[in-house]
């Protein structure tokens, strides 16, 4: 599904440059649920951004579902992001003047779907995250957990191959975090490939595999026994 070979990335800081990723090798199979861990500055967010085509690597290979991702124009990157990837952010990143269903329908708008199809699909995904009754509410009228569920519905709307989550529970309390994790696990059970950045051990243990980064290299890459989140809910 995802193949990364010798990925390097550095950022210029003043006259010198900061070497953030120093040759990452990573393979993710379809249906996996991977947690990328590391302290701040370890390069985990940069790695996720490159996988999400929000940033570009300096050197190395990145192949997504057999498609080499290199030297993309902005237009092409936009199309790929729309087709292949679903994003879940720590701060939800909902558009504040659009209600829940409009937020979920946005990726479908950029896919060029007709209004009616968009509405139906968006409603279907909102039902799936259990927020059908909140479809007409603005983000400010929703709780943190509800916002994140809207964001997950939005990430799912375009039916992406890969879900990328950047600290999806970072802004939530423990109970809500486990609810969200239970939901993400359920998505994984249904076959979705999920890649998640986190620095919380308990959250990482709810994935099936943990990749630990330090100073731009992979320190450890191991399969774990998944802790089911339902038991805490």
């Amino acid at each position, binding site marked *: 599904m995802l193949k990364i070979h010798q990925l390097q990335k550095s950022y210029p800081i003043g006259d010198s440059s900061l070497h953030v990723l120093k040759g990452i090798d990573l393979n993710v199979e379809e249906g996996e649920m991977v947690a990328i861990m590391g302290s701040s500055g370890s390069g985990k967010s940069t790695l996720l951004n490159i996988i999400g085509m*929000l940033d570009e690597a300096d050197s190395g290979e990145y192949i997504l579902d057999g498609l080499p991702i290199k030297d993309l124009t902005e237009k092409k990157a936009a199309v790929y992001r729309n087709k292949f990837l679903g*994003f879940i*952010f720590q701060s939800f*990143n909902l558009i504040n003047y659009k209600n829940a269903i409009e937020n979920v329908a*946005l990726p479908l*708008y950029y896919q060029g779907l007709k209004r009616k199809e968009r509405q139906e699909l968006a409603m279907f995904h909102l039902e799936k995250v259990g927020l059908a009754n909140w479809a007409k509410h603005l983000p400010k009228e929703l709780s943190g957990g509800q916002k994140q569920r809207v964001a997950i519905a939005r990430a799912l709307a375009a039916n992406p191959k890969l879900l990328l989550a950047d600290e999806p529970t970072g802004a939530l309390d423990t109970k809500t975090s486990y609810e969200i994790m239970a939901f993400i696990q359920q998505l994984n059970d249904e076959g979705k490939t999920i890649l998640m950045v986190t620095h919380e051990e308990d959250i990482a243990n709810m994935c099936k595999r943990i990749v630990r980064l330090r100073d731009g290299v992979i320190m450890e890459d191991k399969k774990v026994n998944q802790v089911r989140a339902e038991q805490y809910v």
Partner: protein
Amino acid sequence: MFDLDLWREIFQSINMNRTRSLLSGFTVAFAILLFTILFGIANGLQNTFKEAFVDDASNSIVVNSGRTTKANKGLQAGRKIQFKNEDFNYIKEEFKDKVEFITARVFKNVKASYKGEQNNYDLRAVHPDHQFLEKTKVYEGRYINQNDLNNRTKVIVIGKLIEEDLFLKTNALGKYINLNGIQYKVVGIFTDDGGDYEERQIYMPITTAQHLYGNNDYIDQVRLTYNPEMNYDQALSFSTLLTKKMKDRFDVARSDQRAIRVRNMAGDSKKINQMTFGLSVIILVIGFGTLIAGIVGVSNIMIFIVKERTKEIGIRKALGASPRSIVSIILIESILITAIAGYVGLLLGMGVLELVGPSLKTYFIKDPGVSNSLVIGATVTLITAGAIAGYLPAKKASRIKPIVALRND
């Protein structure tokens, strides 16, 4: 090309951010409001100028006489020059092909009365051509004609305001007015663009006035228009020649400036044309200045809007928005706000002009207003202005990197 969803997106964005949209629209509305008022006032000034000079035909030449200031050919200085009918006929014959219309004038002040009403008026005794020289518009009855001159008939043509003064809203045509004890029949009533003063004039056949008020053939002034096919230089050399011939005829020194005075409107109308042109240029400069200030204002606010919406644009890009769709959103929003706000400003400006226009007459501003062509021009300019104002911010927005926009802060 027409993308309903795009418009829905834009209207939602404008609607959801009303304060922001109102604020950015306000700059443009205000700029256009100022522009419209300035333009209207300038137009009003122009109207006043034009009116002050359109009273008479622009190719007029006026010949006046006075006293000599220099001794010449054995004649003393201080001699009074008096034109007579023969002088009028001389000019008419001598310059036959250069003269379009010609008339003599005799001035009198008369006390006019009709039934109980009475008042003092200026009277001009003239030839029939006078109507064309003065641009008198007879709207009832007729003007003085050659028959009146031949028979010295006691008829007069009166201005609209005299009819209002003396006849108190009843029709004056065919009635008899008493002027200094003699009864005259009103055969025509006229209006004149020259204003109230011109509309309180009485016209009478020149022969009647000469016969009844002095029993002589004296003339106070000769007025003529030169052949309109002559250009400016030809017109000037014609009036120079006319001056020379008249001076010779009355044995006046060539250098005497007072005895025979010839005034050629060609010189004046050239000056007026230059002045109106200058005024138009000033209006345009001021107008464009305000408009540019407005554009800069909108552009500034659009840049601010883009900054404010950085995160939203980042989200949209992460979800698959192409750079082009981002540009269209910002650009069309900018055009829409500019166009609507501009129109509000234009309408407000026109309303203000309509409201205060009449009271500005005292300040030499007549009928301030904007023309239809200006409204069309403004529409095109506003759309262009909106596009210019929105272009840079839109470009900026399309370059926003989602990774920067989405960074948790």
